[in-house]
Each structure stands twice: as structure tokens, then as C-alpha cells.
């Protein structure tokens, strides 16, 4: 028997589609790129069952991962990439670079519970929470809302024993995604903003590689949902609002202090913001999950957290430790005024697995990121 659903639930789902402007709504996109409201679903529509989906807590908390993304009940409509009502979309001020993939992020905090605010680390999410991130490429980056091909959706599941991470690869029809325990690698093509065709050997990480970045000490940890990364407005269906305020009002975040006491990273690619802040924001989100005292790259002594204040620690005149040929014949991690003599710049500007940084998560060079760090090192002075 199909359950009767209240009309306002259908409307809210439609509004969520609107809120996710730029997400995957190809069927509803007009030539101008604006989205139109979803057609109202009639009571006998086959979509009804999907729209009534609710997150399946047994599946979320199970030790073994589900084989299909649909098993979790996180999406009301997988084909159109619409999450269920209580799941909140979010964005980061400066995101991690993943071979130019577009990313759609969502947070699910189970009913009546809330994540606990922390000043500098990822929020403490209650058991049953899920962080969802879908990676996708529009066929033509000049029309970012059209012909979007979803590649994978990564889930971070907050279970009793801590976080578990799994990735799901979307099928050709874009109707569901399949578990990939050992990861995968395949070619992806698109046309970039300049009209040039790009291709990459896109890599879906395996479970161990997930941990390669998402670990603090021995504990698995999210990276993105920190106060300083979320502290900006997001265009919700109800209008723009600060994400932290929105989470608090929605009851999924506890302990938010007055907003002007909350740290905020710079937008790395907003030229109106200070160059030093932009570069440090970029290094924070792209590097510091490993390059911190508690991270997988602790033994390098190179610490790139936004909050790091000791210049030697973030590389200034610092000797490399175990760089091997990653040094590129250069003597210091960062030499003020000389990106061409700085190992940090050299390794970001490489695609060689024995040289490149980050080690994982990219097969291409992030030209804009490299240019930012080049400009920043050029501007540095020894004092």
C-alpha cells in the first residue's frame, strides 16, 4: 500500500530542488539555465514511494556497507539527485580541489539531535549522522547546470565506533550508484570554461585511501564541516542565510557562539580578499588534513593548518625531510619571493606520483591553485 503524503512535503521537496540551483536538475532546466518548479506528483505516481523515503538507520549503522546508494534512503529521488526533506545542503568557502569535479554536499543529522559546535575542528556529529558528497562533471563547464554526469557519491557515516567511509559509483543511467570498496579509475571528459576538451583518469578512492586523508591521530574524522569553512551565506529555498545560523535554527547544530566570534577562512579565489589569507585557506583545505601534527604527514614537520602561526612550520626556510625526488633538487619548502625555488610549489605543480602533492585526490594540476601559491610565495618576505 502506498502511503498518503501531505502536499506540503511534495512542495518542500520541489523547493529543495530549487535551493540546489546548479545541482542536477537537467529535466527541469530551461535554456536560460533557470530551474522551473518540479511537476506536482500525483498520488498514483511511481515517484511517490521514493519521495516518502526516509533515512534507513539500520543501514546507516550496519558494519557492512550497503551495496547500493539507494539502500540508505537518503535520496527522495535519486535520478534527479534530490535528498529527503531533513537533509541540509551545504557548501565550503574554499573547497578541496578534485580534478575540477563539481561537488554537492549534504548533511544528515538524525531527528531531534544536533552536532556539537567546536571552534577549530570538524563538528562532533551524533551517531547516525551522514555526510554526503556527490562528485559530478557538467558536459560543458560553460553551461554548468546542464548535462551533468554524476561520477560518485561518498558517504561518511557516523557509527557507534566512529566514522565509516564508503564510495558509490553512479551507473550509466544515473539512477543509482554501486559500492566500490577497492575504488576505481576511469576516463572522464568535459569541455572546460575556455571551450577546450579536458580528460582525466578519474580515481574513486578505496577505503584505505579515504582514511589516508580523513584521520586525526587514529580516529577517522570529517574535514569540511568546520565552523571556519561553513561561516558564509547559502542560498536556501527560503533565501540566503548564514549556514551556521541555518543549522542552528534547524536544530542540527548546538553551541554556536555569536557569529562575529567564529573564525572564517578566506575564499581562495576571491581577489578582493588578502592574498596571504587566500593562500593559507587553500593550503588548509587541500593539505592540512595530512600536514598537521595529528595527521598522516606529521613526520614531515610541515604543518599547513589555517591556525598555524610558526612560519617554519608552514614551510618558510624549512628543510625537507623525506622528500626524495619530490624535492626537485630544491633546498627549502618555501623560499620567500621565489616560488621556483620552493618545494611546496614544485610538488603542487607536478602530476608524477612520486612527486605530486596532494598524493591523492587529483590526477591533474590545479592551475588556479598553483597560480595562487606562486603569487603568494612571490609576495612573501623574510621577517
Amino acid at each position, binding site marked *: 500500500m502506498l502511503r498518503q503524503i501531505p502536499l506540503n512535503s511534495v512542495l518542500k521537496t520541489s523547493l529543495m530542488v530549487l535551493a540546489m540551483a546548479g545541482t542536477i536538475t537537467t529535466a527541469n532546466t530551461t535554456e536560460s539555465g533557470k530551474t522551473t518548479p518540479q511537476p506536482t506528483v500525483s498520488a498514483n505516481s511511481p515517484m511517490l514511494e521514493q519521495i516518502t523515503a526516509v533515512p534507513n538507520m539500520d543501514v546507516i549503522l550496519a558494519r557492512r556497507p550497503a551495496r547500493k546508494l539507494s539502500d540508505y534512503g537518503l535520496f527522495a529521488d535519486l535520478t534527479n539527485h534530490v535528498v529527503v526533506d531533513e537533509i541540509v545542503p551545504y557548501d565550503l568557502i574554499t573547497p578541496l580541489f578534485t580534478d575540477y569535479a563539481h561537488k554537492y554536499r549534504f548533511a544528515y543529522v538524525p531527528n531531534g539531535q544536533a552536532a556539537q559546535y567546536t571552534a577549530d575542528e570538524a563538528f562532533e556529529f551524533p551517531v547516525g549522522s551522514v555526510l554526503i558528497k556527490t562528485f559530478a562533471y557538467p558536459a560543458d563547464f560553460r553551461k554548468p547546470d546542464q548535462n551533468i554526469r554524476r561520477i560518485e557519491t561518498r558517504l561518511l557515516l557516523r557509527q557507534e565506533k566512529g566514522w565509516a567511509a564508503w564510495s558509490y559509483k553512479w551507473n550509466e543511467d544515473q539512477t543509482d550508484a554501486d559500492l566500490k570498496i577497492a575504488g576505481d579509475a576511469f576516463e572522464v571528459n568535459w569541455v572546460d570554461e575556455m571551450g577546450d576538451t579536458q580528460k582525466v583518469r578519474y580515481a574513486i578512492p578505496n577505503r584505505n585511501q579515504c582514511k589516508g586523508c580523513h584521520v586525526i591521530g587514529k580516529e577517522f574524522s570529517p574535514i569540511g564541516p568546520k565552523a571556519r569553512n561553513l561561516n558564509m551565506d547559502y542560498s536556501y529555498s527560503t533565501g540566503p542565510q548564514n549556514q551556521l545560523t541555518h543549522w542552528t535554527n534547524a536544530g542540527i547544530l548546538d553551541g554556536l557562539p555569536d557569529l562575529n566570534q567564529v573564525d572564517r577562512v578566506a575564499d581562495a579565489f576571491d581577489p578582493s580578499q588578502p592574498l596571504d589569507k587566500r593562500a593559507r585557506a587553500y593550503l588548509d583545505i587541500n593539505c592540512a588534513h595530512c600536514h598537521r601534527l595529528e595527521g598522516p604527514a606529521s*613526520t614531515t614537520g610541515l604543518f599547513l593548518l589555517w591556525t598555524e602561526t610558526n612560519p617554519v612550520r608552514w614551510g618558510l626556510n624549512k*628543510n625537507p625531510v623525506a622528500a626524495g625526488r619530490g624535492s626537485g633538487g630544491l633546498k627549502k619548502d618555501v623560499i620567500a619571493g621565489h616560488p621556483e625555488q620552493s618545494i611546496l610549489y614544485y610538488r603542487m605543480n607536478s602530476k608524477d*606520483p*612520486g612527486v*605530486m602533492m596532494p598524493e591523492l585526490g587529483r590526477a591533474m594540476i590545479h592551475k588556479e591553485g598553483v597560480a595562487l601559491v606562486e603569487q603568494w610565495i612571490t609576495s612573501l618576505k623574510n621577517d
Partner: protein
Amino acid sequence: MRAIFRTLVITAFTMMHITANAQETIKIEPSENIQEILLEALILAEEGSTIELAEGFYELSDGLSLDVNNVKIIGAGHDKTILSFKNQQSGSEGLLITSDNVWLEGFAVEDTPGDAIKSKGVDTITFKNLRVEWTNGPDENNGAYGLYPIDNRNVLIDGVIAKGASDAGIYVGQSQNIIVRNSKAEYNVAGIEIENSYYADVYDNVAIHNTGGILVFDMPNLPQKGGHSVRVFNNHVVDNNTDNFAPEGNIVGTVPRGTGILVMANTHVEVFNNTIVNHDSVSILISAFPKEYNDPTYNPIPKGIYLHDNVMERSGANPDLDIKRLVEPATGLPIPQIVWDGAVDGVWAALFGPDDAEGIFINEKPGTTFVNMNAVLDMILPWGASPDMDITEHSDVYFPTLKPVKLPQDSQ
């Protein structure tokens, strides 16, 4: 045919549910999609299981990793089970271990673009009868480290062959409780290197045809520093005269071609009963950290170093780098068998010698040649100081007894 099949060693089915440590053996042999098969086996292995790698040539396209405690990976022998990473497209090492109580035995890792086998943050790991090699020989484009345990406790390296690393063939860094024995390091920049580590025994190894044979280092600006308590003994250190091919910027790039044993910036290092033969630059070099650094909590001076009962033959006839640049003008050729740069802590130590426990102690057979370059004294005295070749000043020994390292996984 399926390349992976599982043999349950435990017979009682109910045991599976009682014990978390299923004694499972997962057998793998080379096949078309070995990358996915092997990686999935490593990821899904239960604690207590053994992954057996049959004889054969395994062509991998990406890095492998293990993050499950109490797992053994056993091959058919370092010349029979070969994991080749010649076509590796991602990952900065061939095999990465991040879980505790891991035993690796009887296989080879060849031609990784980065490091061959790395273990990070592991408690108790054994590398036994493995081979890590760059098959094209010494080349600065080879990966940096062969074996690369870092930030580990209880490291046993036994019967390993390491060839062609552009940094160190066998490297142990920022770790505690270490044994390296019965191993052979050849054609690396550094043969065996113990860096920023505590309590290490390095014995019964062969270091041949490297740039430097055995290195004991301490470096600034790292989470674990102040390396101490290292014994290097009963090793054959021979013909380490390969030109230094480390990419510049790496500390091992400063090692002169033809260095037998080098102790840098460590505390309490005992070097004894080694046979050190035929080195272009020097048999044993003791030095301070040679580069500029900015770390107020770091001490760059080697302190409490004890050399005794080593056999040293033929060294110093064709020195390289700093030995050629700084030592040869003072001593002429051949360079003395033992060279100490004379860097000490402060003016008092420079004028009157270091405190007893921090000295350089030498008890070698009569006729052994030595020079103290008096680096610090030369800087502080207005008229400078000349090198001092009197070895007898170092024969009074105030050196603590270093206990043999014991490891939980070592029955020997």
C-alpha cells in the same frame, strides 16, 4: 578461474562468531585484474588473517594499502613473488601499512615511482626476507626509500634486500625499538639509515656499493627528534663508493661518496665490531647537522659516541664533497680513517672538551688514524684552531651500557 579463494583454517564454524581473530588464509595469484583483487583482499581482510601471494609477477597500476590489525602478507620468496609498480599511476608508495601487528614476508616490491613499502604510525611490524628494488640501478629518478617505517614502535627488519633507492634503501625514522639485521643494502644513496629514532640495533648487515653505508641521523623541526641509543655492530660495510645521486635538498645529498659509517647529531651511539673496507672518503664520520635550521629545541651536536673494535681498511684516498673541501686541505691524503668535525656545545666544551657523558670515545687498534677538525674552536678563537690528530685524548670512556633491543614479535 577465480584468482582468489578462501581457506578457513578454523574448523569449528561457531568459532567464527566467537573470536574476532578469524585465522583466515586468503590465497591470491597473479591475474588480469590483480589490482582490484589484491586491494579488495587487503581491505576486507579480517583481523588475524593471512594473505598468501603465490609465486608470479604481479603488475599493479596503483598503490596498495593495509589498514587491518594482525595481518600477515606472505609471498613465495623475494625472487618468486614480485609486485611490480613500473606502471603505477597513483599513490606515493607501492605498499602502505597503517595498522598494528603486521608481518610482511617473502616478496619483492619493484620500481615504484615513490617509496616502495611505507609503514606509518604502526605498533609492531616485521619485514622479513623481502626485496625492494629499482631494477634500473642507481638513478635520481628512482623512489626515495625502499623500506620506510616512520613513526613506528617495534620494528623488525630481517633478511631484507634493498637496491637502488635515491635516498635510503632501509630507512627507519621517528621510531622506537628497532632491529635491522641480516639485511643487504646496495646501490642506494644511503644503505641503512636510522633517523630521529630511539633504541635501535643494527647488526649482521651488509652495506655495499652505496654512497654511504650506514647512517645514524637526527634532524630538526620534526615531531620526534633527539635521536639516541643506537648500536651499530658486526656489519660488513664495503665499497660504498657510488656517486651521490640523491636529488638536491635531501639531507643524504650531503653524504660524501665513499663514506662507511656516518653519525650525525645523535646521542649515545655505539659503533663496534664492524668491518669497514675500501671507501673513497672516510671509514667513520662523526658530524653535526650541517645545514641552517630554525628550531630552538633542536641540538645539532653528536654527543656520547663510542667507537671500538672496528676493522677499518683502505679509506680516504679519493675524497668527495665536504671531506674533500674541508678535511683534505688540513690533513692531506689519505684522509684519516675516523673524522670528527669537532662541533661541540658552546665555548667551554670547545676549549676544554665536552662533559664526560657527551664526549667522543675511541678504542680502536693501534695505528688507527683520526682527526678532530675543531670546527667550533676554530670559530671562537681569534687565531683559529688547527685540526687535532691525537686519538689518545679520546680513549677514556664514559659511555652508558646500551641494552640489546628486544621486540615482542622477535623469538630469536
